[in-house]
């Protein structure tokens, strides 16, 4: 008979034994693992949901155009009264043209201007109140809006103050429920007649959607329809993502100069990039995700305490067994390993089932909430690691207690 030096039992055999012990107590095993399943499952589901909503917001914002900077008019200020941002009339079409032409601005490859206002539009008996946006030719490409049918708005339309309109699919639905092709028809905006020349593609998000908008040449909007000289926004596309900050600076200083202002803190306009918006949104969703995950983590700890409780009961219940094992030559380490392995099997099995539950829940929730399903492998690895750790941490004390039992006392235990 070969006897290895020292007393050593293979870890794989301890595993086998642990599994058979847990199998013998199916109900108890299932219930104590449930705590871990719920804990890990909810942590994963919430982390995934958080990531999914961040991802979705990012996608929506990016779908509004890439590398896009938006210039807003500053807030109105008369004496000490400060009006709401965006209400001022400080931006003009000339500003936009200057930005486009200026040789000092080297970091951009597209400028568009827009003036928007709400107005009543009608076709025959149908009418609706919607957003009328006066635009320059590059507006569509910068804002990532595609004209699906017909033509876009050209520079000559602006020069000629053409009374033409490109409408969104929402407007088509509302005004032309029975007309298969509204291109060429005339609609009335604020009493003036406009010919429809194009229809934009439907754009998913309702929140920032342009489905219900009516686009007309900027000059037509300013001079014929609304009689205003200012514009609502200037859109500028930077040449690349890395150049966005530089572009922001160049545009900022140029506009200060054009408006005759000395320092940036007197600026009567504001420039923002998508990154800023994304960052703000991410901060908010991030806080929520952390909060919810924290709550889920508490349930994980509770699950761990459940495991510890069960392991302590098991140790007491199996005192005699421990005595027998010690009498037969089990060392302290062997006993510790045996009990630790049992609790680790419990928590890891719970963890794996929890991961499956969590992924299942994430898929269902993201489907319901119409979010992209992003399951990060890192959160799964983390969850399995954490459940293993819980097994060790909460299994340690019971295992220690088992190993410290004196064989004589343990054998006497009834």
């Amino acid at each position: 008979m070969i006897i290895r030096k020292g007393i050593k039992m293979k870890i794989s055999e301890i595993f086998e034994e642990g599994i058979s012990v847990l199998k013998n107590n199916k109900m108890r095993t299932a219930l104590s693992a449930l705590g871990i399943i719920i804990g890990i499952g909810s942590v994963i589901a919430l982390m995934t949901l958080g990531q999914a909503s961040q991802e979705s917001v990012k996608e929506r914002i990016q779908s509004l155009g890439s590398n896009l900077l938006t210039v807003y008019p500053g807030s109105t200020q008369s004496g000490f009264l400060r009006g709401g941002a965006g209400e001022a009339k400080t931006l003009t079409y000339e500003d936009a043209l200057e930005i486009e032409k200026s040789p000092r601005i080297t970091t951009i490859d597209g400028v568009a201007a827009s003036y928007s206002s709400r107005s009543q539009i009608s076709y025959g008996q149908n009418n609706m109140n919607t957003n009328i946006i006066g635009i320059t030719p590059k507006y569509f490409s910068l804002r990532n809006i595609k004209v699906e049918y017909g033509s876009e708005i050209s520079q000559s339309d602006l020069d000629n103050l053409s009374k033409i309109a490109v409408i969104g699919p929402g407007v088509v639905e509302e005004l032309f429920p029975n007309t298969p092709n509204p291109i060429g028809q005339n609609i009335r905006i604020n009493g003036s007649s406009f010919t429809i020349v194009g229809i934009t593609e439907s754009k998913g998000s309702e929140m920032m959607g342009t489905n219900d908008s009516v686009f007309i040449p900027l000059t037509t909007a300013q001079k014929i329809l609304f009689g205003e000289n200012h514009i609502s926004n200037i859109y500028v596309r930077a040449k690349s993502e890395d150049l966005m900050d530089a572009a922001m600076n160049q545009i900022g200083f140029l506009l200060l100069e054009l408006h005759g202002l000395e320092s940036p803190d007197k600026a009567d306009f504001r420039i923002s990039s998508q990154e800023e918006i994304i960052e703000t949104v991410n901060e908010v969703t991030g806080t929520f995700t952390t909060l919810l995950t924290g709550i889920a983590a508490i349930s994980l700890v509770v699950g761990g305490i459940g495991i510890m409780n069960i392991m302590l009961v098991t140790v007491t219940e199996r005192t005699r067994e421990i005595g027998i094992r010690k009498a037969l030559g089990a060392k302290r380490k062997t006993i510790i390993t045996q009990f630790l392995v049992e609790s680790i099997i419990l928590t890891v099995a719970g963890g794996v089932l929890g991961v499956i539950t969590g992924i299942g829940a994430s898929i269902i929730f993201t489907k319901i909430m119409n979010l992209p399903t992003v399951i990060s492998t890192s959160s799964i690895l983390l969850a399995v690691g954490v459940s293993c750790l819980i097994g060790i941490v909460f299994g340690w004390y019971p295992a220690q207690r088992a190993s410290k039992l004196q064989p004589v006392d343990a054998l006497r235990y009834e």
Partner: protein
Amino acid sequence: MKPLIEVKNITKIYNGGEVSTQALTDVSFEIEKGEFVAVVGPSGSGKSTLMHILGCLDVPTSGTYIINGKNVEHMNDDELAEIRNKEIGFVFQAYNLLSRTSSIKNVSLPMAYAGVPKKERTERAKQLLESVGLGNKLYNMPSQLSGGERQRVAIARSMATDPSIILADEPTGNLASKQGMEIIDIFEELNKKGHTIVLITHDEDIAKRAKRIISIMDGKIVGDTKNEKDYKRIKIPAEGTKIDNKERHKNENKRNI
């Protein structure tokens, strides 16, 4: 040649709070390889304490215990575990088999702790179980075995690592007399093959099957003889009360974890 077991001036005092009990007082004896010794005495005489010390389940308060040339005096828990594993085979009154564990796995367990490869230990466990007449019950759980069969599994297990001695503590205490005698037959057989056996009992009939009887009373050795003539004089007082069958049955159920 050195004796297999040397017990020198062993004293054991239990400190149970305010009262301390002297369980063994200055006990000394030697056991040679191949002996079949019965340790007899009434309950409370200290024979169980002696059994625990011989089995390295407990350590003496003072005195020296040498087994197979190894002095266990200053050994730590793990070293004692190793001695128990390799030098001693236990047979308990209450069998002490692992419940929900097959005969063959029970017998394999000490070898698993000794690090014997699985295939080899399963093979040996099978042989051992066959040698005690349980070749057809290798995969039975203890609950599917009779008391006598359980004790035979325990004997097979006690021989698993081929230890220096087999320590049997009231091995027939929970068994009907016929089954008890069968167990003693097995011990006799093992002894003939050269195994050293120390049997602790309060049953005279069983003690008389051994080749040497050590009598203990009040923690002291009061008799040590190999002479069969002396055997007749051995009377175990008081506890000699044999538990009746009903009581025995109750114990059996209770003790089987």
